[in-house]
């Protein structure tokens, strides 16, 4: 019973969406989708956000209570959460208010800085690890240099053919491998979905079987 009921829920739920995707019948398109699913989906969305806020607050308050490693940082979460929420509710989220000021002058530069660190790691990794150790690595290295040069105005000044060569690399070898991976992933997901719908794959229930 402990396994049969969850399996039935998954199978029926999954099959309903299969019918929805392939059948134009009124019962599935209007009665189920428009009348039942849509209002429930709209009602659930705010609860999901609320659940996230509660869960995050509980995690950080527990961290402070237990004095877990780096517990001091949890105060920054509460400070940021309270100040941003109050700024949004009291002053509004439009230009001229505290909320937008914090976004422009705090969140935007800090988030962008974190993302830009990637450039430093890439340069360091390229220098330390990008070696022509084998034929395959040499092909990769040459392709990378051509694409990198073709991406920037200086590269076009070196040769006007570079963008065409780079585009060929992206359109042919890159595309062939990407499409191969995409097809593999697609077929794999269809197979796994079918296995779940038919009750063959049960590992998501936990505990092993």
């Amino acid at each position, binding site marked *: 019973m402990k396994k049969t009921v969850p399996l039935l829920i998954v199978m029926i739920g999954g099959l309903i969406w299969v019918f929805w995707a392939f059948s134009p019948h009124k019962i599935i398109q209007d009665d189920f989708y428009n009348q039942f*699913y*849509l209002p429930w*989906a*709209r009602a*659930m*969305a*705010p609860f*999901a*956000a609320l659940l996230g806020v509660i869960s995050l607050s509980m995690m950080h308050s527990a961290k402070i209570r237990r004095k877990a490693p780096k517990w001091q940082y949890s105060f920054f979460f509460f400070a940021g959460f309270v100040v941003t929420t109050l700024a949004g509710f009291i002053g509004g*989220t*439009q*230009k001229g208010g505290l*909320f*937008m000021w914090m*976004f*422009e002058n705090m*969140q*935007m530069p*800090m*988030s*962008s800085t*974190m*993302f*830009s660190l*990637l*450039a*430093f790691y*890439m*340069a*360091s990794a*390229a*220098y*330390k690890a*990008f*070696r*022509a150790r084998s034929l395959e690595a040499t092909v990769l*290295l040459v392709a*990378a*240099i051509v694409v*990198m*040069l073709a*991406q*920037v*105005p*200086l*590269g*076009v000044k070196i040769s006007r053919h570079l*963008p065409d060569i780079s*585009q060929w690399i*992206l*359109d042919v070898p*890159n*595309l062939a491998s*990407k*499409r191969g991976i*995409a097809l593999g992933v697609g077929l794999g997901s269809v197979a796994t979905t079918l296995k779940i719908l038919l009750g063959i794959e049960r590992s998501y229930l936990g505990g092993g079987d």
Partner: protein
Amino acid sequence: MNFFERIQALDRRWIYIVVALAIVIPLMIPYNSDNVTTPPTENLYQMIDSFAGREDRAILLSFYHDASTMPELFPMEIAILRHCFERNVKVFTLTWLPSGAPVIDFAINSVKEEYPNIVSGVDYCNFGYIPGTLAMPTVIGMGDNIAATVKTDAEGRKIESLPIMKGINNYSEMNLAVEFSGSVAGSYWIVYARPKFGLNVAVGVTAVMAADQYPYLQSGQFIGMLAGLKGAAEYEKLVDVFGAYREPDSPITVQTDEDGNKIVPGRPFSRELLQDESTKELINITTQNIATFSPADYEAFTAKYPEKKAVFDAIKTMDNGKVKIDVTQVSKAQQDEMGPLAWKDLNRMTRNILYKFKVARIGMNAQSVAHIMIIVFIILGNIGYFISKSRQAKK
């Protein structure tokens, strides 16, 4: 320890310092460079431009990212919004992320500052944040009826009563969705909206994600793509050359026809024009202070302000048969005499581009230097590697 052994063992902090300098210096000292436009960018530009001035066409911009990927994605958003505001294309915006909502506001406000005639609810409409859990029903619902699916905009106004909705019902009219994302872009649109309703889909992605999108681009599921800062720089260039271009005799104010419809300024896309030498003076990213006219163009320009002709004649100089006016040499009294409209028009003729509309191209200069530097690093690292390897073999 010789030179190559030393650089093999180079501390990574030195690399970090060189990277920082290579990026910061070109950002602080811009230089003029040309970003060759690619078909994915040109196709997107042309698709948006084909909606210019049409009441029964609109585009939807989906801001599916937060502040972290703004350095790459924000210039694209600014460039597309500027294109739409220049060429009278109706724009709708939305985001599936709560942290994407301020990005939309910031983008719209940044561009709108330069277009005082653009009005919310008339020229553009922000749907705001729609929870990601509602993405699928929203994408499908808008295919039938936009106003019935997204009932209110971000300001709480009823969508169906907004003037922008005149002539816009579903994807037959709002026929292009462009999604900006730092991870998976355009998936909802190509899975649900494109096969069912024939919606045109395009994406703007970070450079590291661009390679993943090529299969969809080649299959035609995406009609265009802006790839990283380069895509943004290409789009900025296209807007400067076509959308924001004004002939010397073009009026600076919004013009309407007999029926009260806005006349679309700018000029349509042309590949021949893009390769023409004359476009180079339209895409300079260094500060431009001098308005240059042929004698005929000067006459056409001053004919718009006949009563100010004497002021223009007093400040003009002749150089190689061209009429030139240096706006830095115009005194405050002459500016007042000219009036704000003529002064603004004269400044526009210098073809000086505002920082926010050339930020991607300035960034591309930094990227040029950074790419060359990384290539040099790779080559030096490999030379050192092979030298040390051959020495080991000799031993």
